[in-house]
């Protein structure tokens, strides 16, 4: 179609409710979110809706964002740390159209940040909301395939199985071999999947001033970490958790502290490391 989409008076697309979802659905999701915030790290079922995107494109995160965003919010969307990937761009555009909200690439300017696979390097502050897209909310699913049994284990706080997995990793290979989606204990009670963020990002979740919300569309689960909640990566006293990072500096901004992506630069095996957080990297360069 060539015609530009019709824009309603509020600045959003005509024919859609604000932020795409109808108000009843948003209310249902907000109820699940409230419960999730009240029981940090506990997975709450919700009636996931069909979204104009396939599963795996962040339908859970989008529904959460749609339910918490207001006309005065400023939205940032990142995918693997970058604001300019297809997935991030299309989600940002989607909300610009259906909610008419302002968007930004700057972490500090955003009030709502939807993310896949990273936590921004710039520390988040009170009043911000970080919405994670989650493909598999159940941290025990590889160890215990029976869903009813995993629920029972959560209810009883019976997480010996997860420690057996860590024990086996150390016994076989000398260290815990989990570099993404490293399991965490929330508020000393619930074992939680932090979504496939690098283990490097795990410490940022601990006592974060911002509200962290997690949406899994296909698995129909929502969970949350309220501000300033304890989030501990599982480990042993004599094998403490170590957030992994490539031992290199960013080829653009020179940072030795950020999480780096390895990028192939030519077809002769040339490669270099770049900050995965594109906004943070750009700001560092601008500051110089």
């Amino acid at each position, binding site marked *: 179609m060539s015609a530009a989409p019709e824009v309603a008076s509020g600045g959003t697309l005509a024919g859609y409710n604000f932020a795409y979802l109808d108000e009843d659905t948003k209310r249902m999701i907000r109820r699940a979110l409230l419960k999730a915030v009240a029981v940090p790290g506990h997975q709450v079922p919700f009636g996931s809706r069909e979204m104009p995107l396939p599963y795996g494109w962040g339908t859970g995160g989008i529904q959460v964002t749609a339910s918490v965003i207001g006309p005065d919010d400023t939205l940032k969307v990142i995918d693997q740390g970058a604001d300019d990937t297809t997935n991030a761009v299309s989600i940002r555009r989607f909300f610009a159209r259906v909610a008419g909200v302002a968007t930004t690439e700057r972490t500090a300017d955003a009030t709502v940040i939807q993310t896949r696979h990273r936590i921004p390097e710039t520390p988040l502050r009170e009043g911000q909301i970080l919405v994670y897209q989650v493909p598999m909310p159940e941290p025990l699913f590889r160890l215990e395939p029976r869903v009813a049994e995993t629920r029972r284990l959560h209810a009883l706080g019976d997480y010996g199985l997860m*420690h057996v997995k860590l*024990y086996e990793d150390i016994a076989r290979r000398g260290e815990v071999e989990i570099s993404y989606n490293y399991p965490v204990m929330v508020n000393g009670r619930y074992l939680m999947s932090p979504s496939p963020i690098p283990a490097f990002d795990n410490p940022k979740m601990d006592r974060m001033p911002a509200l962290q919300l997690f949406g899994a569309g296909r698995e129909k689960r929502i969970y949350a970490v309220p501000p300033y909640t304890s989030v501990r990566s599982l480990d*042993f006293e004599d094998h403490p958790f170590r957030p992994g990072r490539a031992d290199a500096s960013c080829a653009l901004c020179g940072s030795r502290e950020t999480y780096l992506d390895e990028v192939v630069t030519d077809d002769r095996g040339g490669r270099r490391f770049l900050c995965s957080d594109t906004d943070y990297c750009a700001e560092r360069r601008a500051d110089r």
Partner: protein
Amino acid sequence: MSDAPILEASGLHLRFGSVAALDEVALRVWPGEVVAILGESGSGKTSLLRVLSGTVAPDAGEVFYRDAAGVLVPVHVAGEAALRRLARTEWGFVHQNPRDGLRLGVSAGGNVGERLMAVGARHYGGIRAAAAEWLRRVEIDPARMDDLPRDFSGGMQQRLQIARTLVTRPRLVFMDEPTGGLDVSVQARLLDLIRALVADLGLAVLLVTHDIAVARLLAHRLVVMRRGRVVEHGLTDRVLDDPQHEYTQLLVSSVLAA
């Protein structure tokens, strides 16, 4: 042995259709005591063990467990969370088939360590040291600690299951035909091992067997079952050497004749 029972059951009934698996069964077990439940196939031994351990609810009757703090826990009223907590702290289970009691895809050390981690152990070196010590106690070379039990012989698997069960020093262990699937020579060695460990740790054990020799070797007391009823009970030597009930006399004499 102290004067308060660790386990106490009364008036137990359990039916499967027209079969009375348990019919007015009562039983007491004192701390540090090994009680064997003896009887032929289908007499209700496994049913009784399942009801006593809270796995199966009886149609009628009560089961009480006195925990380490001295609190009387009504096993079938306490709820799943309380039972699971008991199962991983104060109780142990040794299954006839070690596959039911082990994680075959987890190393021998991990199998022993799991119960320690389940009760809060978080020092890797400490867990490994305890696992090595327990493998030694059940006569498995600690050098095999990182091997998978799937590659162990049946006797080794059963010894590993025992190590995994006893590492947290439970107070009460339920065993259902723990030597049932093994060769006779392997059985004898395992029985000696169980006897030594049980005496050493002062465990209370409820042992199901249809083998009089096993009962004689391990048990302080016997409960003889037939068609869901307890037909005779008493000290092992008394029951086996001077059986009062004609069914027990039959059981004992069939062994003597064999």
